[in-house]
């Protein structure tokens, strides 16, 4: 077991010939939660897609365990690397169990379409995400948080060591956001799964991430532990935002308090 799960070497990713990421060398640490942060359009989603084999690099290579992911057979990669894109949609009428069962795709063959293993993994995934009671309900009848849990359950059934998630908490209310993030944290702690996610909320990124990667305009500005990366100078640099950082009273991680125009309570008196 190597220290790094995924590595990139001189990675260039482009859409229609416009390079979004250029010449990037990056290492994703195995068994840790890595969070990508940065302003809109900095290329975090693009990078995630590149890591997840959804985007073919214009140049450069992405290595999974020292082999280029594009040289590995597709199903083998799918058994080790799972990606949950932003805002996924399930077909109407699909039940939760059917959705989770889709995660077994990389293990199925023409003859073995529903082995005992498949069944066991689906039930395990449902148990971990505490969705057994909803298993036979249609996915679209669930709340936002439950729906996201169902999608995560699908990636769990996929039994991948590495999980990539693109903004898994956007559009969820605060309680559901914490619900999903706690679930991912448990997965990482209990089973040592490598998790890479894109998050908008800086404070959540600090709280849940072991390793932060701050990006701007396709380049990595800083990476490291939250208290190393999330400094007032960096936030100003990357986001153009003034802030005062304190220690989060609940978790002890950096808590970024932005300085906008409305500032002082004293002024209201």
């Amino acid at each position: 077991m190597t220290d790094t799960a995924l590595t990139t070497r001189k990675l260039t990713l482009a859409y229609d010939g416009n390079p979004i990421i250029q010449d990037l060398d990056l290492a994703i640490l195995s068994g840790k939660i890595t969070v990508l942060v940065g302003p809109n359009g900095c290329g975090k989603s693009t990078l995630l897609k590149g890591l997840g084999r959804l985007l073919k690099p214009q140049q450069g290579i992405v290595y999974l365990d020292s082999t280029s992911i594009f040289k590995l057979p597709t199903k083998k990669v799918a058994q080790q690397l799972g990606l949950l894109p932003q805002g996924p949609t399930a077909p109407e009428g699909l039940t939760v169990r059917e959705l989770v069962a889709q995660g077994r795709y990389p293990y199925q063959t023409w003859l073995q379409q529903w082995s005992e293993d498949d069944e066991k993994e689906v039930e395990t995934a449902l148990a971990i995400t505490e969705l057994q009671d909803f298993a036979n309900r249609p996915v679209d009848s669930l709340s936002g948080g439950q729906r996201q849990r169902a999608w995560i359950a699908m990636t769990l059934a996929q039994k991948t060591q590495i999980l990539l998630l693109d903004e898994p908490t956007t559009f969820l209310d605060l309680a559901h956001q914490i619900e999903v993030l706690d679930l991912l944290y448990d997965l990482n702690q209990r089973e040592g799964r490598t998790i890479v996610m894109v998050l908008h909320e800086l404070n959540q990124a600090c709280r849940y991430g072991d390793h932060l990667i701050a990006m701007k305009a396709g380049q990595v500005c800083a990476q490291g532990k939250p208290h190393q990366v999330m400094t007032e100078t960096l936030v100003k640099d990357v986001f153009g935002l003034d802030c005062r950082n304190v220690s989060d009273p609940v978790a002890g991680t950096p808590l970024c308090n932005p300085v906008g125009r409305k500032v002082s309570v004293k002024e209201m008196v």
Partner: protein
Amino acid sequence: MEKSEPSQWLIVRTGFLSARLDRRVPTVLLGLALVTLLAIVWSISQGDYPVPPLDVIRTVLGLPTDNPNYGFIVNTLRLPRTLVAWGVGMALAIAGTLTQGITRNPLAAPGIIGVNAGASLAAVSLIVVFPGVPIAALPLAAFLGALTVAVLIYLLAWNGGTSSVRLILVGVGFSLVAGALTSLMITFGNIFDVSQALVWLTGSVYGRSWAQLFAFTPWLVVFGTLSLVLSRELNALQMGDDVARSLGSRLEWQRGWLLLSAVALAGAAVSTAGGIGFVGLMAPHIARQLVGPSHEGLLPTAALTGGMVVVVADLLGRLLFAPIELPCGIITAVIGAPYFLYLLIRDRK
């Protein structure tokens, strides 16, 4: 693991084989098969020369009946045509399910992939421009037309990869061109030939023989089976391109095979019986209501539904204005349109 509700699946596991199916599927399939059988028998018994239903069954099984003419009427005239109706309905329904799955658009019909346009153009050209050519050549010409247009559409829509939107738009463009050329022939051709061409265009199983049934069946069997085997791929495709790729699906490859099956099935159907409309659109919807969106069950259910619809449409076409026969394609449109409106109204909150 405690399961509080009964499983929604039927699971089959033998030595080297395992599969799962929505538990509603076997019952639904049985029901549809029964209704279709009844419809087929009833359809054969009706017509200028009525044959009692029991005698229909006897004649088909080769048992003796009172009237020696029954043999000819049932076995030579009506049975093949009704079986063609059933087969064509099944093929169109499967093609429709595949098309809706590939484009992820519940309003897609097989016509979108240009099959109808190509086949119609080829068939009408043959009927109007070369009336001397024997009728037997018609299905082959139509099929080649369908295949050519479908391939052209796919090639032209390919630009570094396929895209549902481009496929639809290019398909629309081609349909317009083919439609214009067809219109050209209808406007200027010999009136008698044009009349025939119109009937073909609307979709009819009039006069379909055993020869045509045997020419058609292999396509249905081969590509119908292929589609069934590809159900898993279709299921994965429904989740969106990104999720499908992440699950390890070789997207372009699978889409290509699925498209090929859809084209082959629709092409074979259209070239055998003309452009019967609405079946490819209706059958998957009805089937989804009955057994849910998983394609392992959806495909056979849609197939049986489509087959049943066309058999019934053919029956009605023969009965409504007897002795004049209305092509079954007209009946399917007359049934299909209100059905869609009914869906519209029923879904209102």
